[in-house]
């Protein structure tokens, strides 16, 4: 990416309210044309960060730059940035056409008709131009909010939980729609969400935020496959975390001991300092694990990590079956098995061997809270 005109650069930006620190000093660069997601539970500082970029919140320290221009001191109406607000903030007294034309008119553009019509066609609302916002469905209002922001050709479009008010099916549809629009217009999108699936579906780069800090930044696949903290491991999808002790280190591989099992862990996938005798957390995603009945344990190829256990619970969810396995290293080991060939013996109470390729194992610093990020997912689901 040679064009850096639309880069968003945050340097040492922070925000405190009295004694409460909403955002700890933060450095972040969002490259021009990317779809960037700020992901985190409510109250993690993601919306505050977004509002500081928009100019709606003044940073306590640090600077915000767009391209080569430092915009920290500019009021929102002078920033080449537009926002799609949570619950849209459409002007209730203006119709769809005037809502979309608002930004153009404020910049003194007289002939807005053609542009507005084109923009309404882009979001498939050409027919609704003369309706008031309250006459539209949630999905249509959402599209008006996007059109109203995009028509100004901002350098950066900020989206604050734009899909939060929609039902699940519509949300999926709008995720794809927004992604399509972003590809079409090529504007930098910064998207704030608490929905990890949404962030992973839409964004090229995701920054996971927790308690006012960025925990980890990377592509969705990288964050998912190689989490660097227990928060990321638990917040993004589900992880099985095992408390283990480093037994030996041989070249690229670390051998760890958990209960009486020995597990292999690629050194490159361990973010914690692993010295022999030290503690680490070993993680494995539930869908990477194969489940074999104890009677067939001999058929498991050599070189795989294995743990024995007893099935505690199973739930059939169509594409896969989710098992909860009671093991000596972890009470509730989650395993997701594709429903290709179902072994009828895998019912609660059955003795099983869990095994997986060492390459899928990751290691984390054992000094962290092993349950970080789990609660916040549940809170969001309840909200």
């Amino acid at each position: 990416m040679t064009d850096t005109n639309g880069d968003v650069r945050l340097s040492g930006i922070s925000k405190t309210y009295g004694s409460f620190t909403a955002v700890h000093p933060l450095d972040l660069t969002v490259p021009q044309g990317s779809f960037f997601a700020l992901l985190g539970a409510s109250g993690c500082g993601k919306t505050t960060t977004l509002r500081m970029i928009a100019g709606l919140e003044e940073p306590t320290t640090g600077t915000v730059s767009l391209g080569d221009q430092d915009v920290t001191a500019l009021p929102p109406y002078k920033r080449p940035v537009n926002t799609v607000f949570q619950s849209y903030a459409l002007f209730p007294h203006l119709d769809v056409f005037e809502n979309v034309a608002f930004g153009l008119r404020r910049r003194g553009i007289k002939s807005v008709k053609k542009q507005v019509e084109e923009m309404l066609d882009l979001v498939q609302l050409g027919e609704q131009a003369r309706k008031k916002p309250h006459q539209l469905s949630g999905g249509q209002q959402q599209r008006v909010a996007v059109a109203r922001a995009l028509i100004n050709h901002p350098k950066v479009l900020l989206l604050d939980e734009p899909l939060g008010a929609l039902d699940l099916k519509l949300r999926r549809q709008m995720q794809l729609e927004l992604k399509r629009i972003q590809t079409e217009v090529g504007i930098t999108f910064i998207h704030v969400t608490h929905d990890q699936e949404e962030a992973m579906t839409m964004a090229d780069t995701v920054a996971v935020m927790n308690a006012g800090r960025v925990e980890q930044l990377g592509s969705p696949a990288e964050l998912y496959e190689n989490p660097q903290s227990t928060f990321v491991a638990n917040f993004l999808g589900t992880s099985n975390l095992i408390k283990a002790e480093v037994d030996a280190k041989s070249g690229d591989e670390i051998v760890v001991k958990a209960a009486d099992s020995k597990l292999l862990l690629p050194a490159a996938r361990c973010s914690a300092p692993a010295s022999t005798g030290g503690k680490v957390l070993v993680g494995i995603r539930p869908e990477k694990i194969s489940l074999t009945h104890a009677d067939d344990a001999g058929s498991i190829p050599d070189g795989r990590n294995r743990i024995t256990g007893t099935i505690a619970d199973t739930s059939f969810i169509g594409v896969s079956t989710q098992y909860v396995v009671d093991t000596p290293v972890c009470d509730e080991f989650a395993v997701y098995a594709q429903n290709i060939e179902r072994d009828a013996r895998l019912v609660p109470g059955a003795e099983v061997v869990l095994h997986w390729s060492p390459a899928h194992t990751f290691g984390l610093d054992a000094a962290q809270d092993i349950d970080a990020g789990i609660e916040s997912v549940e809170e969001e689901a309840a909200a």
Partner: protein
Amino acid sequence: MTTVTEAPPLAPTPVEEPRRPRRRGRHVPYWLLLPGILWLLVFFALPMVYQASTSVQTGSLEEGYKVTWHFATYWDALSEYWPQFLRSVLYAGVATVLCLLLGYPLAYLIAFRAGRWRNVILVLVIAPFFTSFLIRTLAWKTILADGGPVVGALSTLHVLDVTSWLGITAGERVLATPLAVVCGLTYNFLPFMILPLYTSLERIDGRLHEAAGDLYAKPFTAFRKVTFPLSMPGVVSGTLLTFIPASGDYVNADLLGSTDTRMVGNVIQTQFLRILDYPTAAALSFILMAAILVMVTLYIRKSGTEDLV
């Protein structure tokens, strides 16, 4: 599986349920309406009919009045007292505009900026109502008294020269001039302007102002294009609540004005209580009512508030 077998027996119950309470409580709404309707009948409809009949009677106090359908009373009253009508509309109009100019910034401040002081300021707005209307108006007599501090200050600043030239004060006097009456009206009806304005401003989502700023509107433009239009219901109800009672008011003109500042309310009061010419007084009341109704209807049509959310 269990949900499938349980579903059918559940279905018929919701069909039956809504009927039962409706049958039992069918008359309740009418009974609840009854006290209000009776009140209106006795204290509004009957007096109106009585007044209407009085306005078309002829006769004298000694011989008694008879309904003679003498509609000429209306014409006579209007042709004799049109200056007072005009003055009422003018004074009430000016007072309403002043109330709006004074009340809007205050209502805006209470709604958006007052923070934890909000309730304190609201109580202060209502506080004057703890004292009688008459006493508050009499207090203005002291405030605007000849040679008092207000008149002194205005005189020193040469404001009185300008107002005298405009014909709203007389020389070194403020009391007994149009200015005093309009001041009294503005003061007395200001809370009726502030409260509806506050209510409609307070309902406006603060994010709309942010959204306007985000879409390149400078703060004042954001106010003009978003906040003000959305506060129109408050502006309309505030101006009506101020204008209607102000145009019928006679206390302010009586206590703070002179014979040259008589409003139609003063004429009606005099006709009823001093001259005892009941038909003329009743006719004047009906003309005032009709005039206000017409003006208000036109005003509401023009401001188009029904279109607002």
